């Protein structure tokens, strides 16, 4: 038994090393003095410095943040209303409708990207921030919709009825009772969507147009011309942000879980 558990421990360790070693290397070399990612010659923050003085990079970061925040906000509204709407209909086609509404998650990104490019071209929409916003909203909505739908399913329908019974109109009951209760789900769904928007290359590259670049596109194109420690620094920052978002997401999940248990 003991030998066995030692072996499985070793196996697990091996998997973790294989998975996370490359990431660790990137992090370590982002602090490397030397330009060559071969030997660690000394601790330095100069690549970070260089990164932040790279105006093209900063512009791309700004684009990505704007894109992520706006598409998340728009999707939060669409996804939440969609989930609330879905929870109220009792049509025979409800199952199909629910499936269709989360389909963008399952369609391969490359197809989505191509389809969107063709569609926007057909509509004569100039490629740029607007097309990116529309594109990102399309694949952000399902994340929020799914989270909110799950939260609504676990919610006692008599809560809304109680609010109506006490004198609240339908809109007021939604605002006072339902919205605060599904807010954690809206938040966690939005965070997930934001993370997806922040690192999307495939769809964005089809619809970003010639002049506009997002951070992932920038990184992607730079890597093709050779990895610089600057990219390492950028990756480290993005990783840190992702982990932070993930932590917030879990924290929200935990709080929500606790609340739901108490009801």
């Amino acid at each position: 038994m003991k030998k066995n558990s030692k072996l499985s421990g070793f196996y697990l360790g091996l998997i973790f090393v294989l998975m996370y070693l490359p990431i660790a290397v990137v992090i370590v070399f982002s602090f490397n003095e030397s330009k060559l990612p071969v030997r660690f010659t000394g601790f330095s923050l100069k690549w970070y410095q260089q990164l932040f003085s790279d105006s093209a990079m900063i512009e791309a970061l700004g684009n990505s943040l704007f894109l992520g925040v706006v598409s998340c906000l728009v999707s939060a509204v669409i996804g939440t209303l969609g989930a609330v709407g879905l929870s109220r209909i009792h049509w025979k086609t409800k199952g199909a409708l629910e499936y269709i509404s989360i389909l963008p998650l399952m369609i391969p990104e490359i197809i989505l990207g191509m389809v969107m490019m063709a569609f926007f071209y057909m509509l004569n929409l100039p490629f740029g921030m607007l097309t990116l916003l529309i594109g990102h909203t399309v694949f952000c909505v399902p994340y929020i919709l799914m989270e909110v739908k799950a939260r609504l399913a676990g919610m006692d329908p008599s809560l809304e009825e109680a609010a109506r019974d006490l004198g609240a109109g339908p809109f007021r009951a939604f605002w006072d009772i339902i919205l605060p209760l599904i807010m954690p789900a809206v938040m966690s769904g939005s965070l997930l969507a934001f993370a997806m928007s922040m690192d999307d290359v495939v769809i964005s590259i089809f619809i970003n147009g010639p002049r506009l670049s997002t951070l992932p596109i920038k990184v992607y194109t730079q890597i093709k011309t050779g990895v610089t420690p600057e990219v390492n620094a950028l990756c480290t920052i993005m990783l840190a942000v992702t982990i932070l978002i993930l932590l917030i997401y879990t924290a929200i999940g935990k709080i929500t879980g606790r609340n739901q248990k108490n009801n």
Partner: protein
Amino acid sequence: MADTCLELKNIRKSFSKDETVLKEISLSIGKGEFITLLGSSGCGKTTTLRIIAGLEMPDSGQVFLDGRDVTALPPEARDVNTVFQNYALFPHMTVADNIGYGLKLRKVPKAEIKKRVSQMLELVQLPGYEKRKPSELSGGQRQRVAIARSLINNPKVLLLDEPLGALDLQLRRIMQLELKKLQKKLGITFIYITHDQEEAINMSDRIAVMNHGTFEQIGSPDEIYNHPKTSYVATFVGNANILKGKAEELEGDKVRVSLAGGSVLAAADGNTPAKAAPVTLAVRSENIVLDESCQRGLLAEVVEKSFAGGLLRVVLKLTDGTEVIASRYGIDASVQPGQNVTCFFEPENAVLVDVEKESGAES
């Protein structure tokens, strides 16, 4: 009965084509009355309540509140409040916010809300609980908060959907008394739903027994318990034995009925069944007396006997196979399974039920 407060007229409701939940029910409820809708689950009592609250629309029929037709009004426009079965307290609000929500919607000034909330908490015996969250309360406390939240709007009618269902027996008894006291004190009409006949009898001014979407009988607890009109009411409320026989002749205010294993006298209660007409008698088990000397009453065989809390329960089988249960304190415990005995009951304890149904079946 005082003035009519709430009136249901020919309410019909079905959720699917094959199942009618409510079949044209009508009910008139007086001001300050405590009325209980009693019935097993699925009898339509909750649907009735939801229609009164406006949470469900009837397919046809009308609801009148203080003489005004409110059938088409949404729940927020009705002077009716509900205590939900699972309390439905808003989990993200404090006790004070929960109770004060109705007033907040009416734009009552904050200071006034605060004052009324603490009065309400006083009334339901939870003073000082304003800042708590519902999750920090026990079941009984949540119940009180739910009641306070519904009462603060001063509704014309308070609807209570099995409000004590989730509480333990002891707490139920206490809450029953408290609710009744509260209702007397405030003079608000209470419509109370339960499947517990004891609770209904303890608390109500009137009981409406529901079965399959109709009212089997509406009357005072005494009428329902001692003078059931149908065999369903007799068995559901009084756990009565149902005996089917034929009317023989009227003997003053009593009627002689021939049953399997003999004939008995039953109180006619104003009924005059024709000779040889089928009649159904309901006799509660505590009124059935055994005679080991086999001289009086109906011939029967003892099938089983058991004790339950000082109460002897004897299962008998009449000659036609009808099962009769006799249970009373101080019953002669010497009978044994397999023994032949006779059983009898005083005529006033035998009630003619299903009279309308049977005369209807004949004509």
